[in-house]
């Protein structure tokens, strides 16, 4: 391989056969070029779609209960059960390191809420302070429920903007006023808006402990909601949230004597699941691009071997002459392979460099929602170049081997 005489012989041959060399190189270079562009665009699409999702960062998880569906330990299916404060506290204690915001919810549907002569039917949410962040509510005036309210079971309420508009006419300031929830007076401490829409503002929030006591709910809660701490990338976030869901599901099933096989009893809403579906879509797209890329490479290899066959055919007579004047079969194979590998390597790297330059130059100019900073993993690209070179060498070997087997007499007779 490092025989200088051989190199001189190869360079001589290449210099004297420019067109042939150029055509071989072109098919290899374009194969690699197309592969690099495809991989780059695939990566760009992944980046683009990930950005769309990471902008929202809606990694919230909701847990609710439904009647059981599987008979277990002598308990009939169709049994109702409720989560309790104990569950909330336990999950809080055992998952502290992953939870960002948390809240249990005690829901009272269609409560009558009145102030002076105005009244209406609204939902009461008995919640924790974290609920404000989970629901993305922002205060218009006053404050939200805080931990002290929970501990002291204060009869205070934060009201949605719609409720405020309905009950407090003439721009009356609701802060410090008492409104009646199902005829029980609560002091208004804040007004909030919710980007989620008007429906989310047609509700009032009270401390969950207060709601349980005042509205006779004992220790039970309607559902649990959490957001998890952000992770450094999306895959980890999905994995963490799935792990979290699995942990709390198995805890709740164990605690409330629910069959491990019961898929119905505990309802889980995981907003990351939604995003994960998009990730699967991206994965499919990338897989498709890979497939196209690999096919391109295969086409390139087939092209190279075709050209090698033609070259050997064209050089049959030359090979015969070389053998007649004393060329060893191994030196014939070596000559043809050496040339093939040299040409594919140079062409492969040329294609790679052009592809990378194009991605580098044009990449930043692409600004759509679904493609962002297309790039290609350099190692992957280098690997494909080497695969192509090796495949080209293998493809070139058989014609070369056959050429070396040609009897010089036959080759020379070939006029």
């Amino acid at each position: 391989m490092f025989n200088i005489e051989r190199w001189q012989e190869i360079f001589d041959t290449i210099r004297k056969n420019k067109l042939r060399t150029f055509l071989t190189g072109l098919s290899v270079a374009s194969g690699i070029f197309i592969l690099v562009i495809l991989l780059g665009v695939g990566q760009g699409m992944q980046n683009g779609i990930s950005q769309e999702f990471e902008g929202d960062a809606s990694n919230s998880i909701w847990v609710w209960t439904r009647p059981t569906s599987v008979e277990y330990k002598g308990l009939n299916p169709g049994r109702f059960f409720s989560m309790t404060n104990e569950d909330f506290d336990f999950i809080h204690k055992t998952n502290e390191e992953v939870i960002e915001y948390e809240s249990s919810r005690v829901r009272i549907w269609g409560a009558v809420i009145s102030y002076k002569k105005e009244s209406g039917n609204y939902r009461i949410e008995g919640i924790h302070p974290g609920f404000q962040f989970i629901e993305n509510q922002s205060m218009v005036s006053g404050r939200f429920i805080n931990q002290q309210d929970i501990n002291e079971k204060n009869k205070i309420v934060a009201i949605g903007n719609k409720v405020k508009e309905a009950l407090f006419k003439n721009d009356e300031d609701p802060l410090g006023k008492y409104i009646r929830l199902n005829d029980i007076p609560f002091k208004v401490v804040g007004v909030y808006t919710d980007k989620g829409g008007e429906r989310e503002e047609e509700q009032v929030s009270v401390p969950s402990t207060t709601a349980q006591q005042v509205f006779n709910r004992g220790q039970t809660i309607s559902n649990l909601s959490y957001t998890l701490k952000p992770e450094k990338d999306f895959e980890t976030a999905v994995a963490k949230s799935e792990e979290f869901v699995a942990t709390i599901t198995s805890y709740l099933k164990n605690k409330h004597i629910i069959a491990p096989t019961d898929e119905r009893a505990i309802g889980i809403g995981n907003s990351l699941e939604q995003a994960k579906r998009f990730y699967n879509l991206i994965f499919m797209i990338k897989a498709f691009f890979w497939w196209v890329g690999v096919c391109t490479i295969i086409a390139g290899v087939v092209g190279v071997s075709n050209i090698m066959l033609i070259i050997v055919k064209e050089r049959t007579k030359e090979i015969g002459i070389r053998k007649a004047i004393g060329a060893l079969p191994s030196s014939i194979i070596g000559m043809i392979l050496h040339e093939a590998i040299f040409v594919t390597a140079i062409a492969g790297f040329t294609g790679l460099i052009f592809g990378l330059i194009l991605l580098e130059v044009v990449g930043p100019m692409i600004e759509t929602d679904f493609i962002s900073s297309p790039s290609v993993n350099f190692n992957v690209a280098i690997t494909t170049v080497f695969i192509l070179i090796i495949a080209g060498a293998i493809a070139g070997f058989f014609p070369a081997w056959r050429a070396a087997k040609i009897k010089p007499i036959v080759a020379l007779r070939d006029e």
Partner: protein
Amino acid sequence: MIEIKDLHKSYQMGSNSLHVLKGINFSVKEGELVAIMGSSGSGKSTLLNILGMLDEADSGSYFLDNLPIKNLNEKIAARYRNKFLGFIFQSFNLINYKNALDNVAMPLYYQGIKRKERTDKALHYLEKVGLADWATHLPNELSGGQKQRVAIARALASEPKVLLADEPTGALDTKTSYEVLELIQGINDEGKTILIVTHEEDIAHMTKRIVNLKDGIIINDGTVKQVRANSYV
């Protein structure tokens, strides 16, 4: 130099087999200039190919410089060809993308000689055939006679024991043929053993011995009075 005993060779042509050489006994001493004659199909080219290790005999023995030539694998055959034999073909068989000098230097490349020495040696042999001025020309820039002289220089470059020429004048006109023969005679005068296959009487008579082949056997083998090619020119 060459010892052949009871050489047989047949070719498979579809379903029939063609018996080309039917027991050739033949020997050549060092320094001889031999013409092998015969009409087409007489087996003369086959004999030369076997002598040149380009082809293998079915049976019989062949000694080259007391070395038995049999059951050669490709590798050994290639080495022997390179070391012992120089070929001159009817259609010259030069490599058309290499210039005259590189063509002559080719056997030396396969002997593993360094480029510098190769070039010096090749130039020496090109001078010997009178083409030193054409060293950098490609074969298609040369006339037929010049091409054949390049081929002769190439055959000589590896300093073989025997030169084998297959119809060396077959593609040349009479005047050029005689010029080539003059060159060959000169090389023979220096002591090189040369075998020429030809079907031209005048060419054959410029050698020192004529072997006549017909239907795969030698019908006539005798020395002749050599006609010097330069007497015609």
